[in-house]
């Protein structure tokens, strides 16, 4: 889809350019040639504006590096009526997010190499941002048996987590972390005591009480870490 960059040269001038990776925050110009940034910042147009460039005056609007959302729940596969990988990627692009990590709690769960390959293929065909699948730590998100982390990682899973599910069995979690280490696999997991967290949607306290919403005590996370 629109992952192919625009051809030619675009010049964005009068922009506020922010790049925390190099402590940059200044008014300036960004020059892009065939999708690659060739100059950026207050001095970027010192060489002059290239001939034939498309010039866009941003009038002080901000340019940021593409954002990365590490925790995205997507309906596809299994809930395409709600959302697909394609539609989720458009929503991401609209918010300046250029890379998303997709949670494995789909139906079926992303616990098998075929499903990781499906996500990669579908994203390649339909997504307008980069979509990286996270694979499940436990088969079926059941918290009992670990997944094939070695092969899942080779297939393209960038990290392992059980989505919204927590893993109550500490012995299983320890085995999974031990196994993951051998393969250099990253585990990013929600740690929460299932019984304490219950159906909570916010932190326990006065506001939750006034709002009448189910809440989670801080111990739900303390106990699980």
């Amino acid at each position, binding site marked *: 889809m629109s992952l192919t960059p625009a051809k030619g040269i675009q010049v964005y001038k009068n922009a506020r350019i922010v790049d925390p990776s190099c402590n940059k925050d200044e008014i300036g110009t960004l020059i892009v040639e065939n999708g690659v940034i060739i100059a950026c910042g207050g001095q970027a147009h010192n060489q002059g504006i290239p001939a034939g460039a498309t010039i866009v005056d941003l009038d002080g609007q901000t340019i940021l590096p593409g954002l990365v959302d590490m925790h995205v729940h997507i309906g596809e596969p299994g809930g395409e009526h709600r959302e697909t990988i394609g539609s989720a990627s458009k929503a991401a692009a609209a918010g300046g997010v250029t890379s998303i990590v997709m949670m494995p709690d789909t139906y079926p769960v992303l616990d098998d190499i075929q499903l990781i390959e499906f996500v990669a293929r579908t994203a390649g065909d339909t997504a307008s941002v980069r979509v990286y699948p996270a694979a499940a730590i*436990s*088969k079926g998100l059941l918290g*009992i*048996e*670990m*997944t*094939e*982390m*070695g*092969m899942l990682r080779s297939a393209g899973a960038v990290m392992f987590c059980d989505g919204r599910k927590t893993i109550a069995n500490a012995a*299983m979690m320890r*085995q999974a972390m*031990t*196994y993951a*280490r*051998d393969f250099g696999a990253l585990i990013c997991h929600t740690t929460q005591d299932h019984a304490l967290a219950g159906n909570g949607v916010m932190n326990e306290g006065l506001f939750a009480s006034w709002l009448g919403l189910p809440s989670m005590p801080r111990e739900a996370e303390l106990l699980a870490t």
Partner: protein
Amino acid sequence: MTDTSSFPIYPHRHLLGISGLQYPDIACLLDRADAAVDISRQREKKKNVFRGLTQINVFYEASTRTQASFELAGKRLGADVMNMSVAQSSVKKGETLIDTAMTLNAMRPDILIIRHQAAGAAALLAQKVGCAVINAGDGAHEHPTQALLDALTIRRSKGQLDGLIVAICGDILHSRVARSNIILLNTMGARVRVVGPSTLMPSGIADMGVEVHRSMETGLKDADVVMMLRLQRERMAGAFVPSVREYFRYFGLDKTKLAFAKPDALVMHPGPMNRGVEIASEIADGPQSVIEAQVEMGVAVRMAVMEALLDPAKGGVR
């Protein structure tokens, strides 16, 4: 027939483990076993050195080759061999190991062979009976005759153990074969490596006198011997490794992985094998495999150990 009286007197009464044995003890057993190999290759496979002696095999865990091997070894030495089948015995009725031991002891056997699921069972039994005891496997602790038969197989093929690189691969955590082999091979001067996922390594493995490798590529590099271990079925489904196919892909011995070892590396397996799990069929049946030789050496080693323990030169019938 080989004259076994030429061997030095073996100083130990039991064989409970490789731990505690010195270089000369092991060398003596291997030399005796070397001589015993020929007996099983003759038409007349019987010696009469154990005439009138009683051997009882007490196997609390299922075993095919080890029990058969001990039984044949005893019979070839001329002993009366009894297999106590634990499945149909009073153990089923709740008798403790010690009570069973006392009962058997009262029948005045000369040698007891025990396999038990609990580490330390053979040593406990040895304290309670008046005869020689051989540990045929106690939990995840030791399996000394397996280590000796492995050493004999290697020595007969490579000429010596000293300086060889031996890679022990797979489920080190639950393996008594691995523990006995690590101790024996180190004592005899081999360089021991262990290879497998961290989930199948015991705690403190790096201090057990081995190099620890997490990949077959580095673990098998230039190895003279590749020893595969059995992965129990119940450990393949997610608790220790995620699946058979993932295990085979990263740790199963196939042509590609064996190519990291020396071209003349020996392939060994204590059995029973899971083909397609820890070892590919073409390797198990291939030219580098000495798996059947291991079984043959097993009988010789067990004859040698029993003869060494009950050497008449040690004097004194109990």
